[in-house]
């Protein structure tokens, strides 16, 4: 039956939808000079993909031909990340619709690249084979390099792209060599086969450990964990702000997805996870240095955009705390990681989106000084900024509070109370630079001769802020629904 054939692809419908939309936009852009609807089309398609993923997850139509599931998982975990990535990308597209128009940068290829990069991120988040991990990572990364270099006449953008590209490709080469070693050690490229070979002790131990180290290093690059974070502040600052938003939410979420799949999936046996001989201590150390350095470096910044870049490094550290607790708690810890990633996505869109809103043509808001007094002159424009930074800080009743709560309580339950205490201390350091934004917004006046920032007027940016603001508060007041999705994704993945 033809309908059976079609419904048997339901599990990958979000991916197919994005490819279709991306190709259509390329065609439309080739024949039409009118670009006013592109941002809205892109955003609506991405939201539709997110909605479809959510619907599939609720209905449980986890079907796809075996040829697909061999390379791309059709499971709750993949669908969870579909929703997060598509929502993050869609909100970034809305921000771009306002930002690019205001600054005279709008070109059709931006939205095509955004869609295909989101596609790469979704492939990466679903990848269950070393080959599809590599391909997803490269699709996502190549798109992201091009997006960072999008404002190609700006020295800062191109410099950020050069640093991102060189270090990113270096990391990809390390990942590839590690994957090849893992194939040699186990004789398999699929994560399930690797898991069996590693768990049964059939794998060559030296090669396996070397492969795991190389894969961990390259994925730590991709999530921006210290000491592999040097590209983060430069490329985040160089890119146009909607791209920075997209990278800090969708690209980072996909990198965490593959980290979960590789570590808790392929290396999820007791020996590989052990607190002394496995990967857990490595993740603990990464989490500690990432939280500490990310927060301290953010303190020293005078640019709000660069501060948010370092804060995204710090947040990667909090997520790693949850991952470190997996060896003891299993699904509970993974669900905390998932919830954190989702909460961070909406909070970060809100913060970066407010930064976009605060600037207008010829005067982009970048530094703290640019924000001085803006809150008193334009309270409506400053309100989302306040909610966004409070959520990043982890204040109730926002999404960020429950994100931090679940992650740290997972660490405590796993017997790593000291790690949770360190995390809370690091967040307290974060309070200084997050609250500094609010202080500048409401309690400072701009210097005498400084140009006064005027917020832009854009329905797109307003819509992105309303949507992300709504979900920041919704996930902060009634987290149950979203946590349930995270728990079912984590349980079906590990159970």
């Amino acid at each position, binding site marked *: 039956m033809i309908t059976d054939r079609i419904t048997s692809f339901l599990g990958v419908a979000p991916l197919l939808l994005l490819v279709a939309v991306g190709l259509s936009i390329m065609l439309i852009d080739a024949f039409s000079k009118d670009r006013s609807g592109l941002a809205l089309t892109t955003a609506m398609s991405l939201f539709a993909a997110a909605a479809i993923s959510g619907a599939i997850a609720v209905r449980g139509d986890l079907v796809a031909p075996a040829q697909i599931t061999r390379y791309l998982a059709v499971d709750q975990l993949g669908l969870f990340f579909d929703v997060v990535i598509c929502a993050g990308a869609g909100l970034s597209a809305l921000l771009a619709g306002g930002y690019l128009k205001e600054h005279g940068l709008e070109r059709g290829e931006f939205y095509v690249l955004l869609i295909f990069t989101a596609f790469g991120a979704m492939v990466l988040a679903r990848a269950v084979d*070393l*080959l599809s991990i*590599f*391909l997803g990572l*490269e699709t996502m990364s*190549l798109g992201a*390099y*091009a997006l960072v*270099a999008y404002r*190609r*006449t*700006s*020295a*800062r953008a*191109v*410099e*950020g*792209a*050069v*640093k991102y*590209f*060189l270090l990113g*490709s*270096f990391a*990809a*080469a*390390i990942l*590839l*060599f590690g*994957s*090849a*070693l893992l*194939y*040699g050690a186990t*004789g*398999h*490229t699929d994560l399930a086969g690797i898991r069996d070979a590693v768990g049964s002790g059939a794998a060559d131990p030296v090669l396996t450990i070397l492969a795991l180290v190389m894969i961990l290093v390259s994925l730590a690059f991709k999530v921006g964990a210290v000491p592999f974070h040097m590209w983060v*502040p*430069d490329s985040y*600052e*160089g890119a146009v702000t909607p791209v920075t938003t997209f990278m800090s939410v969708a690209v980072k979420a996909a990198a965490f997805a593959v980290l979960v799949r590789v570590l808790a999936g392929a290396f999820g046996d007791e020996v590989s996870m052990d607190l002394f001989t496995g990967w857990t201590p490595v993740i603990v150390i990464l989490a500690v240095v990432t939280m500490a350095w990310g927060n301290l470096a953010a303190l*020293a*910044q*005078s*640019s709000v955009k*660069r501060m948010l870049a370092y804060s995204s490094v710090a947040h990667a550290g909090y997520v790693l705390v949850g991952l470190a607790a997996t060896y003891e708690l299993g699904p509970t810890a993974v669900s905390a990681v998932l919830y954190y990633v989702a909460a961070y996505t909406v909070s970060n869109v809100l913060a970066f989106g407010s930064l976009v809103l605060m600037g207008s043509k010829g005067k982009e808001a970048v530094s703290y000084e640019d924000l001085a007094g803006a809150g008193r002159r334009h309270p409506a424009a400053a309100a989302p900024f306040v909610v966004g930074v409070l959520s990043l800080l982890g204040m109730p009743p926002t999404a960020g509070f429950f994100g931090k709560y679940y992650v740290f309580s997972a660490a405590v339950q796993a017997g790593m109370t000291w790690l949770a205490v360190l995390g809370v201390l690091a967040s307290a350091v974060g309070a200084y630079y997050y609250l500094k934004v609010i202080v500048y917004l409401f309690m400072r006046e701009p210097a005498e001769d400084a140009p006064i920032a005027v917020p832009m007027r854009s329905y797109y940016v307003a819509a992105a802020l309303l949507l992300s603001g709504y979900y920041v508060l919704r996930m902060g007041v009634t987290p149950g629904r979203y946590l349930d999705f995270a728990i079912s994704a984590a349980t079906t993945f590990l159970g």
Partner: protein
Amino acid sequence: MGIGAYLALASVLFGIGAVGFLTRRNMLIQLMSIELMLNSANVLLLAFNRAYPGNHDGQVFAFFVIAVAAAEAAVGLAIVIAYYRVRKTIETDRATLLRY
């Protein structure tokens, strides 16, 4: 002589590529060093596939690596050109605009 010789050769080539990437400051040569690293991984994949000849997994992987290397070179060289247009240099040591 067996598969081990290929393994040793691949790790030497990977090492040469990594040293080139980390010590050179010329973007083009850094990019070529990355190509060396991808090539060394291909040697590994093919050698391991020769050790597990039941299927073509390693060779299929290497096939896609070659395609990805081409894509990466295209984007990388485009970024180098854009950088050269703006800054009139291709040395990463002079890429110091973005510091605090």
